[in-house]
């Protein structure tokens, strides 16, 4: 077990290293960092000095090493656009994104699992067919259209919910600001989180349904029925549990995607998170922010994948056995 975790950690470290390398090249070779840093009056001599001082004349491997050390200490340089340390910018916006993703993930998993179970277990119920058709429409609606639609209906027409922003936020200790402690914060998160969750909900719903249909065809479910087990035990004990491994994989990936898709949602809802920061960075070619965001998102993915791996363990005894050997 410990070996397995170590192995996985090692693998994750390699992934992070690769991402860091990409990010490093992005940072250092896409656009000249010096000309991005200095004004137009700077002389060639000054620029060379600066180059020397920043160590840009060192061998690439040395520079990369320095980049890694800086990154490990959370130092990603200064944003070209906002003239502030990137890590500060990201730290300020991370809570907003993570809270949005958290609420969306709960919605997506909750609705996805419930819908998937219903449609998987009651295949021919009219409501299942309704859910499936709706979910296909859900997949076909781009996130931004859903967002615009929701704003139009619930903010403008009905005036029930705010159309933008996070509402009132409360600063907690440790630099975390939360919108989940105020009424207006909760109101503000409803539309964006639904928008963000919809696509993932349909994906989770469909994967659970198709896994469930597959499991329901297996011999051990037939055998369980032949043993006269209660359908509740069969459905939720045996069938659902056996769908979990693929479902956990997909759900893990989807939660990761939520972070990436929050770029769109944050743009539509003016949600002050990392995604909005990133899209502005792309538009303004703000390379330090882009490379830091890339590393951060990769880190999230790696962590989620590690959690997924550990969950496999909890769920599937065969894996536990495999690793033991």
């Amino acid at each position, binding site marked *: 077990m410990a070996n397995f975790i170590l192995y996985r950690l090692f693998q994750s470290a390699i992934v992070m290293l690769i991402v860091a390398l990409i990010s490093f090249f992005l940072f250092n070779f896409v656009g000249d960092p010096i000309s991005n840093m200095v004004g137009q009056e700077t002389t060639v001599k000054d620029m060379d000095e600066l180059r020397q001082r920043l160590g840009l004349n060192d061998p690439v491997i040395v520079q990369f090493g320095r980049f890694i050390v800086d990154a490990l200490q959370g130092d990603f340089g200064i944003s070209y656009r906002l003239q502030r340390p990137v890590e500060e910018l990201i730290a300020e916006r991370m809570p907003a994104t993570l809270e949005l993703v958290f609420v969306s993930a709960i919605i997506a998993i909750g609705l996805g699992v419930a819908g998937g179970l219903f449609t998987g277990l009651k295949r021919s119920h009219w409501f299942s067919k309704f859910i499936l058709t709706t979910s296909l*429409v859900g997949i076909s609606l781009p996130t931004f259209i859903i967002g615009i639609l929701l704003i139009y209906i619930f903010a403008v027409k009905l005036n029930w919910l705010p159309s933008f922003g996070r509402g009132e936020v409360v600063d907690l200790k440790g630099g975390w600001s939360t919108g989940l402690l105020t009424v207006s914060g909760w109101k503000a998160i409803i539309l964006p989180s639904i928008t963000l969750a919809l696509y993932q909900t349909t994906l989770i719903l469909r994967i659970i349904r198709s896994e469930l249909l597959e499991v329901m065809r297996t011999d051990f479910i037939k055998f369980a029925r032949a043993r006269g087990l209660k359908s509740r035990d069969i459905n939720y004990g045996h069938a659902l549990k056996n769908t979990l491994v693929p479902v956990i994989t997909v759900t893990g990936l989807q939660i990761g*995607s939520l972070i990436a898709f929050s*770029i769109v949602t944050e743009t539509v809802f003016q949600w002050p998170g990392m995604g909005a920061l990133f899209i502005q960075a792309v538009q303004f070619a703000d390379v330090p922010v882009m490379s830091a965001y890339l590393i951060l998102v990769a880190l999230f993915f790696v962590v989620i994948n590690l959690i997924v791996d550990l969950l496999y363990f909890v769920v599937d005894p065969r894996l536990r056995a495999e690793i033991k050997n």
Partner: protein
Amino acid sequence: MKDVSISKWWAGVSDHDVTYSFLHSPVTIVATVATILMFAAAFGASFLTIYTPFDPGSLELREAFMPPAWEQGGNSEHLLGTDGQGRDILAAIMYGTQVSLVVGILSVLLSVSIGIPLGIIAGYYGGWVDTAIMRFADIQLTIPPILIALMIDGITRTTLSSEVHEIVAIPVLIISIGVASWPQYARITRSGAMVERRKDYIAAAKLIQTPTAAIMVRHVLPNVIGPTLIVATIGVAVAIIIEATLSFLGVGIPSTTPSLGTLIRIGNSFLFSGEWWITFFPAFTLVILVLSVNLIGDWLRDTFNPKLR
């Protein structure tokens, strides 16, 4: 549909069953008809409409903001109205759909042409080749395509001048989306190739010293291409959505050759001002297009390979 029918694998499936299943799925029929119509309208745009919405010289600013023909102030010359530059919305949608389809299809073709060879190689050889390819695919698969596409676009935007960027924007977008989505095709192909590898006819082919490449192309490929193409159908829908999203975010297709996503972004600023048609019709077209392709993909999957997801 059509590309699928080319493959040998199609022949293995009872024609009778497929036709039957198709004819008894009204939704699929409607979706197919809608898709064909949209394809025809998109690629026949230059024959079907007199307007050339993206030739600035042909625009009449004085005809801007005309509502659809059936609304008060509408004009039958502009069936779906005009936008803020006097562009005919219907014509803009036709040309925009063309861009969306081209980007969607070409990027999927690119993904497929990266994914299938790598998948076959991984599945056929196994061992460390397999591990290397699939580990890489796994890593890339964890990062959503939209993020990869955004990154690639961001880099090209930084390195290229705006003039050059405008020219290469569409190819860059196709490459971004294409490169971002190959792993799923590699995965499917690989599992197929692994199954084929163990079959007797492959052993026979090896015995008579058929070159490996020939075995892969002549024997393995035809057997794995079917499922891949089904997934590719849905892939087209996904690619169209990614393109639209990027364009909506303002980092995709430039407004000189707008796609549906660009049209929606442009129209979005008129959402509250009463000129709903500028954003509604492109959005509606996009949704119908994606929905139709998805429905066809779903049907193909259910009919030919119920186990695929």
